[in-house]
């Protein structure tokens, strides 16, 4: 870290984020709060299992094309010869189609399932990243600068938090589609990609406010602490005080909030797709498959159960992992 004033930076440089006494590097260091939390997490069996499940789904999403190729099928090919005249698949599963085919179209279930993991994870991770970034910056600004900046940001936070988020998410779809020329004029690909970005936008738009409020509160108390006063006194620019002095102290709330919002976003993405306002064809998505599969659930249970199990396992693992992360970073929540 260089802050421009070489003489006065010695102490600050060694300990950018804490007011702990200076230690020699030869003496064993105390663990940082993040290290302690990670150690706790590693000992938590539930957390390890859940992390493995999440990793499993991430790998599936990354290697989706490879897995589909391994099976010898793809997501788009119609197989009308594999469904009877009423649209029911003629078989349950075979060597070419491990989990059978879709009713009516005869597309391969397994390929669509592995590809379906992609949008869920991408939407959730991107929305979390954007929401966290905006939330942290807004919270830092509101808490540190104070005055009218704080009042404006706090008001916006209250405003966003008091909106009915599900209804707004639903309302955004027709608005954005008609901005782009109405659903009649969009090709299915254009419409699908529009929906994809609308989803990410809506989720991050409603996701940042909660975190911003938490960060603001933390910053309000941190900014009165000695190390911040010291940094200000020696003339460290505001930007560096914010990001190099304050931010490292906010790791715990940020990590907790991000890990709790991931399962919420996976749930929201699939839920909106289930309602028909999220992802649409040709992007394969679990939520949308569930909506279609409910019409066939007696004749073709695998078609329904594949995405249901996918979402349930992924969300459950992410949620329990998020809970474990919170317990690890904030031992007070353990009772």
């Amino acid at each position, binding site marked *: 870290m260089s802050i421009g004033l070489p003489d006065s930076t010695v102490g600050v440089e060694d300990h950018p984020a804490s007011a702990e006494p200076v230690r020699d590097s030869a003496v064993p260091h105390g663990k940082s709060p993040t290290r302690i939390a990670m150690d706790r997490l590693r000992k938590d069996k539930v957390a390890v299992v859940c992390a493995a499940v999440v990793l499993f789904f991430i790998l599936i999403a990354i290697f989706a094309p490879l897995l589909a190729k391994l099976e010898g099928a793809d997501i788009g090919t119609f197989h009308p010869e594999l469904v009877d005249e009423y649209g029911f698949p003629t078989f349950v599963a075979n060597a070419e189609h491990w989990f059978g085919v879709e009713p009516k179209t005869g597309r391969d279930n397994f390929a669509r399932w592995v590809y379906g993991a992609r949008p869920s994870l991408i939407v959730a991770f991107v929305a979390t990243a954007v929401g966290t970034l905006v939330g942290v910056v807004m919270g830092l600004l509101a808490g540190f600068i104070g005055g009218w900046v704080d009042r404006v940001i706090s*008001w916006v936070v209250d405003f966003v938090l008091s909106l009915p988020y599900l209804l707004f998410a639903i309302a955004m779809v027709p608005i954005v589609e*008609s901005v782009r020329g109405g659903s009649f004029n969009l090709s299915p690909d254009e419409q699908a990609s529009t929906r994809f970005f609308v989803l990410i936008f809506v989720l991050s738009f409603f996701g940042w406010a909660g975190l911003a409020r938490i960060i603001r509160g933390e910053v309000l108390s941190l900014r009165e602490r000695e190390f911040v006063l010291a940094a200000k006194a020696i003339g460290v620019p505001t930007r560096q005080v914010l990001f190099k002095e304050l931010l490292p102290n906010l790791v715990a709330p940020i990590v907790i909030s991000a890990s709790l919002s991931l399962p919420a976003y996976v749930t929201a993405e699939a839920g909106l797709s289930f309602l028909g306002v999220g992802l649409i064809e040709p992007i394969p998505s679990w939520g949308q498959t569930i909506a279609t599969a409910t019409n066939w659930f007696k004749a073709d249970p695998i078609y329904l159960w594949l995405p249901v199990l996918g979402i349930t396992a992924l969300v459950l693992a992410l949620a329990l992992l998020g809970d474990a992360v919170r317990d690890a970073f904030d031992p007070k929540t353990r009772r």
Partner: protein
Amino acid sequence: MLYFVARRLVSALSVVLVTLIVTFALFFVAPTDPAASICGDRNCTTERYNEIKENLHLDRPKVQQFAEYTVGIFAGRTFETSGVKQECNAPCLGFSFKNDRPVTDMLKDRLPVTVSLVAGYAVMVLTIGVFVGSMAAKRRGTLGDRALMSSTLILSSVPYYIVALMISLYLTILYPILPRGGYTPLTDNPGAWFAGLLTPWLVLGIYNCTQYARYSRGSMVETLSEDYIRTARAKGLSDRVVTYKHALRSGMIPVITIFGLDIAGSLAGAIFTERIFDLPGLGNLVLESLNNYDLPVIMGTVLVASIILVAMNFLVDVAYSLIDPRVRLS
């Protein structure tokens, strides 16, 4: 106290006002063309297009449209569709593009469904949720408590719509153990009304009971360790009186706060339940309107839901400041 209420009221009103402006801007000022989407693309003649524009007053300046809309909410307005005048009474939220009916009337038709759903839900979470939570708090640390708490954690981590959908498909359709969801007005046939809503209530209630059980447990654990509880026990009061008369009363304050906001949120968020159990409530109205690009209906619903949420927020804040004077200072 008066100052606090006034300040909160101003901020609540400002949120409502901005919501009104933002929704209006989103739906009518953004480069959207409602007339084109109503008219459809294939067989839309210019005449028909212009007629729609004129009827909906879309040809007027945006600011004037907004003023008319806002005035309509308080004073009502009149629309003229090809020579026929239609009255839209006081809380007028515009006319539906598709049904040629005032949005307010459509919302009024659907509101009883959603209200019935939420009312039954409220009864369930407040009785079962709170009861389970306080039982767990009393037996804190025992095997039963831990089993209960981890099972609620797992159940509440599964997405709600998955639970609801699976129960609807397997327990009401394939193996009809529970009555199928549906709506009959209470005044028509109370029995059918109850039967149709029973499964949605159970699903919505039991799923959300898990959260209420956790809140109430946390709050009760705290309350049960207070000094006055020990005093009550020392006086020789029975365990039941101590738990349910002394502790439960103050232990429920935070739970009631969450309850207030949750009920307002459920009115807006019952979409999944309504869709899965086929209940013609507000949420289903929005989904139907979405397929028709019926923007005034969606906008009206969003607006009404926002107002309900803000109003509940305000009431909870005021009620809380009555109970706990410290809130007023912050």
